[in-house]
């Protein structure tokens, strides 16, 4: 799937869609007003913008996403690691843990992940 560069506003909006989909557009407007402080016109514009990017769609006044959250998260993370750590995941982890040790649970999770990824 093509990479989508999302700015923070887009991401937050899409996040709301993920949280509430499938959501009626009127309801979405209400949610955005209370969570983000957006006007109705802004919401509709953003829905249009996202649908142009292929990330969301509005059919019969019902809005839903076209891309799962995990997909976007993956893309964002990858892009971040590529940019900041020249694609080095270990480099990222070292930075992330920054001198702190990792807990037992975290170590176990990581081991499990590594095993799964190695299999692929």
């Amino acid at each position, binding site marked *: 799937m093509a990479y989508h560069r999302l*700015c*923070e*506003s*887009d991401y*937050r*909006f899409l996040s709301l869609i993920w949280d509430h989909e499938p959501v009626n557009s009127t309801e979405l407007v209400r949610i955005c007003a209370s969570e*983000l*402080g*957006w*006007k109705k016109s*802004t919401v509709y*514009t*953003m829905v249009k913008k996202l649908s142009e990017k292929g990330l969301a769609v509005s059919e019969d006044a019902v809005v839903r996403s076209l891309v799962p959250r995990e997909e976007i998260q993956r893309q964002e993370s990858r892009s971040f690691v590529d940019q900041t750590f020249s694609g080095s995941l270990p480099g990222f982890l070292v930075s992330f843990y920054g001198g702190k040790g990792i807990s037992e649970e975290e170590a176990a999770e990581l081991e499990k992940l590594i095993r799964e990824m190695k299999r692929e």
Partner: protein
Amino acid sequence: MERIFLCVLRMSLAAGVVILGVLFLRLMLRPAPKKYSYFLWVAAAYRLCAPAGLVAPFSLFRLLRRPVTAVAVRAPFELRSGLEAVIPDPAGVAHPAAQTTRAAVTAAAASFPWLRLLAWVWLAGVAVMALYSLLSGLLLRRNLRTAIRQEEGVWRASGISAPFLLGFPRPRIYLPWGLEGADLENVLAHERAHIRRGDPWWRFLGWTLLCLHWFNPLCWLAYFLMGRDMELSCDEAVLAHWEEKREDYARSLLHIAARVGPHSPAPLAFGEIGVKQRVANIMRWRRLRGWTRVLAVVLCGLFFLAAATDAQALALPPRTLTLNADGTVGALRWGMTVEEARAACPELTFVESDGGVRPWAVYASLSEVRFQGYPAEVTFCFMQYEVDEGIYSASEGLPLLFSYEIVIPGYAQDLTEKLEAILGPRETHQRDLSGQQPVTYVEGAPRPPYEERVLPEEEWYWHSGESAADLVRAEDLRRTVPAWRGMTDRELLEVWCYTYGWDARIRLRHSWDGVDTAFVAAGEGYAYQRLLTEKAE
């Protein structure tokens, strides 16, 4: 329209003086907190939008006053004097009492033809500035549509690099994503201080005045420096509560400056104003205590008063003097001395000069009121009768310099009729004409010989001026040294010759090509004018 432009021009000039004063004072106030410098700009702002200040002896503009010298003979056709008159100033340098009545402006426009053009250029400039502000404001708002509310009045926006304020009536604080912790705290403190002090409003006022005075480079300088003083004093306001947070605050400034690109489009950006100066100012800042504080306050207060007042009263309303049946005006009578005239007409302005008091002449009913005792350099005066308003405006010299409105009660459809009704029943003047040349009126064919006629003195004659028909009395016509005879060989429709004053300046006017030729003839003693016309076939 021209009136508004002239008004703006005058305000701009006055403001220019004030701005220079502010610049000077700012240098003196350098060791002090910036809030004092910031306050000074209010004086400049006042000058930029107030048409006239109160008159006070301690006005700043007194410094500019030169001793007024005797007024030379002028005619309304001279462009040189037109410029002086077009820009009267609060120091009263050009003339003690300048005003911009409609008649005066019309006359000035006639003598200074670019005035209209300049006024339109000015207006165009204002429109461009206003349009620019509007468009950039709308564009910014558009980009900020997807900003997300973090808390009441604080919004996060993607695509901005520095925090800023935007919005009326209550400005919102817009922050970039990624601003956290101590930086966030400091930024919010700064922006909230701005809002508390009403800075966005002052900024808006400043910008509006700049739009109106876009042609004045001092105004641009003032706007820029005002912005800087505003930011610096805002930093100070924040630190007033948290003195110990100085370094922390300075550090935040540097963090944010590092993120901001070279160009920030925002109106009130945190990182926009020179970071170096701000950091320096923060580290240097200390409160003023005791007598230094009093001194600073007093200095600013005095300056404000000096700047906001005028040396002389400006916008005098047009005086209304009634035209009397005998041709005099108001309480003025023929043959009054200066003192009598002053007592009779307190609204007359008398100007000091090296030779003594020279009165500004008020020309009543189209002739002169002569003030005895002075070999007055009589300045040319004409009266315009504005038919649609029934007002006679008597103007001295270049009309913008001063004007009085002489109100003829009622509305006159027919000029002649009305004037004759007023001026008709009068006593005839008896004059001793022995030893003096008769006044002649010459009428005839385009080529010589001419017919000469003696004009009875008590009659009124039409004197065709540039824009209106005036009435002159024969007895006020003065003889010229006959240097004008040479002119009569031309093919002209009309030739008017008249002289004014003791240095009889002859003005030869060709009525169809509008060329003026002036000759100076040595005039001595009492002179009569020769009025010469040629009638077209």
